[in-house]
Every structure is written in structure tokens, then in C-alpha cells.
């Protein structure tokens, strides 16, 4: 702070180490590592490539939904319809392809468009009317759920062309088999981490979640941005629909019924604030993995499924409590 140095010479970029230490994803990362250490000690099977590949496969669908959910929560919204929209999308893809009336790739495309359309409709209602996201997506949850059952006639659709299930195929990596679908999910996480963290669009999404009016006054087209985020989330749910089909090999009208809450759980565990404007998609990836590791580890330890749910519930409440307390310190 001497007079000879420029007044902003001390305004150094923080070092990478410092950035990592102060990152909001540090908490979830530590939690994930602790969980892995704990389960490695309590079960021999836990620490193996095969088991990790299994965990990734188990969380792939919810993880992909959670990407769209993160986008929407960052804008201070919430999406209760994601699982139902995905289920409807998967039925559209499966039924069109199984009936053979359209080529499989067109069936996939139409399924993706249907999901994006639901997202667009959510966005139009949230921003255009405007209505609270909770109400809009609660309504859309029921609409998509009902359409799924009407269109599928409650039938599971099997004997699907290989294009719809190819993402469930595996390739060897060392002595582990990895599904192509896992790669798609990881690629989506990286893509959105980039879009949110390194582009102007990402900055605008955060600004919108901080305060829509401030964003507007700073020249950001908030209407287009909000509607775009919901539509984009819908498209991501469409990709989740394809992953869902590839994992089970069928079009299942009963699928995805708790996935809306599971995706919100992952987002919250990843340190994203439900009030909008704070959080990262990589945090969500950690949140997804935390849920996956706990469920898998507890299963290996022979803990019944309801207890896994119980523990997940406690984890969420803990995560939100920690988030609130750390934020109060800031203010």
C-alpha cells in the first residue's frame, strides 16, 4: 500500500490452491471422500473399479436430471416435473421406435423435442403469466404423469431397436466395464460447468437468480433467459430419458416417479442454494455421487433400502443447515 505501487497492484488473482480451499464445493467434496473412506473400511467390495462403475450407472439418470434441475434452481426456480417429463419422453421414444412407424433416430429426436417442449411450456408459464415455478411444475408433473400412462396404455414397451439402447453398452477400461451412457452424463456435467462458469450466459443465469430486477436493469433480457433455461433443462431431461431407456432396455411408464425429489436432493447436497444465484453444476455432480455412494455402501453393508432413504433424508437436512449457517456468517 505504498504510494509508488499502482493502487491496484495488490488486487492479485487468488491462487488456484486458495480458490479450491474457499470453493463452495469443498464441503460436498470432503463429505464424499469421508463417505468413500468409511465404506472402504466397512466393506471390501466397495473399493473396486467395478463397484464405482456400478455407482455411476446407478446415478446416471438422476444425475442428468439434476443438471437441468441445477439450472432452474440457480434462477431461483424449482422443477417438480423433471422425472415425469423424462418418463413421458422415454415412452414417446420407445413407443414410436417399437411400433416401427418412424426410424429410431427420429423417434429419439421427437422424444427430445417433447421434453424440451415441456420445459418451454414451464418457462412460458413461469415468466409469461407469471406463476410460481413450484405451482407450474407441480401441475406439469401431473400432466406429464397422466400423458405417460395414457399414451403407454400402462404397458411396458420392450423389443426396442438398438439405437435406443446403445448407450447402455459398455467398453472396457482397465478391468472395468464403463457404459457409454456414463460418458454422456459426465460430458454433460463438464459442458454445463463450462457454460455456467466461463460464459456470459452463465453469468446472466447467476445474476437472474440473485435478482431478476437487477439483471433487467443491467440490460439482461430476463424473459428470454428464463424461458431458455427451462427449455434447455427440458432438453436435458430428454437426454436423461434416452439414458433411462438404455439402462433398463425398455420403455417403462412407472419410471422416474421419485426422481424429481432425488434430483433436488442431489442439487442441495452439492451446495446449491434453493434461493437461487449460488451453486455449481460440479457441486451437483458431487451431490449425486454422495447419494450414490451412500446407497451403494449401505447396500454392501446389508442395510435395508428404507434405512438408505432415511439416511439420505438426514443428509439433506444437514446439508441445508450447514449452508444456512455458513451464509449467515457471511452477512
Amino acid at each position, binding site marked *: 500500500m505504498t504510494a509508488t505501487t499502482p493502487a491496484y497492484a495488490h488486487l492479485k*488473482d487468488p491462487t488456484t490452491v486458495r480458490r479450491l480451499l474457499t470453493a463452495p464445493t469443498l464441503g460436498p467434496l470432503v463429505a464424499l471422500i469421508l463417505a468413500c473412506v468409511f465404506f472402504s473400511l466397512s466393506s471390501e467390495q466397495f473399493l473396486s473399479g467395478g463397484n464405482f462403475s456400478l455407482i455411476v450407472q446407478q446415478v446416471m439418470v438422476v444425475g442428468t436430471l439434476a443438471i437441468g434441475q441445477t439450472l432452474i434452481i440457480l434462477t431461483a426456480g424449482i422443477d417438480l416435473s423433471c422425472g415425469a417429463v423424462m418418463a413421458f419422453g422415454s415412452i414417446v421414444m420407445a413407443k414410436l421406435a417399437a411400433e416401427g412407424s418412424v426410424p429410431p433416430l427420429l423417434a429419439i429426436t421427437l422424444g427430445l423435442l417433447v421434453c424440451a417442449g415441456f420445459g418451454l411450456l414451464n418457462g412460458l408459464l413461469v415468466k409469461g403469466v407469471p406463476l410460481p415455478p413450484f405451482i407450474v411444475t407441480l401441475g406439469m408433473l401431473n400432466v406429464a404423469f397422466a400423458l405417460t400412462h395414457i399414451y403407454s396404455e400402462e404397458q411396458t414397451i420392450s423389443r426396442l431397436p438398438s439405437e435406443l439402447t446403445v448407450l447402455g453398452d459398455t467398453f472396457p477400461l482397465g478391468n472395468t466395464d464403463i457404459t457409454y451412457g456414463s460418458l454422456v452424463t459426465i460430458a454433460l456435467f463438464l459442458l454445463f460447468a463450462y457454460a455456467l462458469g*466461463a460464459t456470459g450466459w452463465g453469468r446472466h443465469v447467476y445474476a437472474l437468480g440473485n435478482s431478476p430486477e437487477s439483471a*433487467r436493469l*443491467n*440490460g439482461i*433480457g430476463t424473459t428470454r433467459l428464463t424461458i431458455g433455461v427451462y427449455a434447455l433443462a427440458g432438453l436435458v431431461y430428454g437426454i436423461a430419458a434416452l439414458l433411462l431407456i438404455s439402462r433398463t432396455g425398455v420403455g417403462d411408464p412407472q419410471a422416474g416417479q421419485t426422481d424429481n425429489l432425488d434430483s433436488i436432493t442431489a442439487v442441495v447436497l452439492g451446495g446449491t442454494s434453493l434461493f437461487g444465484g449460488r451453486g455449481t453444476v460440479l457441486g451437483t455432480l458431487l451431490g449425486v455421487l454422495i447419494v450414490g455412494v451412500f446407497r451403494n455402501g449401505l447396500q454392501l453393508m446389508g442395510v435395508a433400502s428404507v434405512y438408505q432413504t432415511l439416511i439420505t433424508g438426514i443428509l439433506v437436512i444437514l446439508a441445508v443447515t450447514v449452508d444456512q449457517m455458513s451464509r449467515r456468517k457471511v452477512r
Partner: protein
Amino acid sequence: MSETSTKAAPVLQARGLVKRYGQVTAIDGADFDLLPGEVLAVIGDNGAGKTSLIKALTGALVPDRGEIRLNGEPVRFSGPQSARQYGIETVYQDLAVAPSMDIASNMFLGRELRRPGPLGSVLRLLDKKRMREQAAAHMADLGIGLRSLTQAVETLSGGQRQAVAVARSVAWARSVIVMDEPTAALGVKESGQVLDLIRRVRDKGLPVVLISHNMPHVFEIADRIHVHRLGRRAALIRPQDHSMAEVVAIMTGALSVSEGGGTVVADTEAAKAAGVTAD
């Protein structure tokens, strides 16, 4: 300054602006004139319509009727972005910052810089380093001391936050800066700093519109005073021609200003209560 500026053409001018919100008429035929290089204070009671007026002048709201001219040319702002493109920058009453984002991000909000070449044009990659450097240079330019530009705005004190909002508008303004109560939340020291900032901006040659409830500040810094009352301009005066008590009386409607610039008692009772008389 006022000698020449009274003859100069206004930088920003409005005639007959009207804005209704249902039953409420927020702007009721308001006129406005800002001269080159001046600090124009806009004063008025709570709810007089000051914020609405400047929102109309900065594109944040679209008036139902009336005309706005910038450097003599009629302009129509479709939104805040449009006014910003004309070089009009605003420090809004609630600052319009994104609290969870850092200082540099806030300074470049809505006009982020991208990396040169395909990294920027194709991959849309932000040039964070360049934005931080430019933000730092602007802060230093205005003598605003901050420890780090990567600090979230919510971790700053009220005065620092205000300084960030002011610095942002100063950095981008080309023709006019509008500040809506920039000292309202500040202590004595911080208010002094903001007033200093306003002087420095004026010395750079940019005209400043300052909305304030603080009479001593207004008299300290304003070249002219626009008194707003019931949605329109009640008077446009020079601080050296009137006492603070008179200006307050004009604001409350006890006095009004005649064509020649003298004051006329509009409400005898109120004027007596305020302890002012007409000249």
C-alpha cells in the same frame, strides 16, 4: 460554469412525460433539463415520483406519453439496454447489483468481455483476467480502495457496495450519469466519499443527475436543483438564489416559483409554519 451552461443546449431533456400504474399517476406531465457538465440535484418528497422520472429517462420504464431528447435528438428507450447504448448510466436506488457475484463480475454484468479469436466467438469464453484488470483500473481511477476484486459484493460494507455501483456507472457512462439516492444508506464518511466521486465525475466533464433527500449535500454539490412535486417539476432553481428553508417549502408546496424566478406564497399557513416568506 452556470454562466455558460445556461446558454448551452441540454444534454438530456424531457417534455410532458406521463406514467400511470393503474390508479396511481407516478409521472404526471414532467419536464426535465440537464445541461452539459452540471450536477443537477433532483429533490422531492417520498413518492413524489423522482425514481419513476429517472427510470423513464434511463429506459427502465417506458413512459405512456411524452418526449425525451438526447443532445437535441428525440430518443425512445425500449429498455435499460437501449439507454445504456446511448451512454446513459444509472446507479439505482437499490444498486441493482448481484450480491453473490464478485466485484469484477458486477462491473461487467450484461456486457462481459470475451476472449479474442475463436475462443471468444465460437466457445464464448469470458476474458476474466481482462475484466478484472479493467475493473481494478477503474476502481483505482476513482480512488476506491478495495482489497480484492474476487470478493462477493455481499461481503462488502454498504459504502463499498455503493462505491462499486457508482464505479460501474462511471466506467461505462459516455453522456450522462444518474444516481438515485447514492448516499441514503451511508454514514458521514462514506457519504463524503460518494460526493467526492460525483465531483470527480463532473470534473471529467460528465453531467450528473443526483437524487437526494439530503439538503446539505444538495446545496454542497449541485449546480442546479430540480424540485419534483406530485409527479412533475415544480421548480428549477440555483442553490445560490434560495435558502434551504425556501427550497424545502417549494418541495412541500408552501412556496412556488414564479416566471421571473422569485418565490410566491402558495399556501400561507404552510409557509408561515415553515418560517419562509415570498420575496
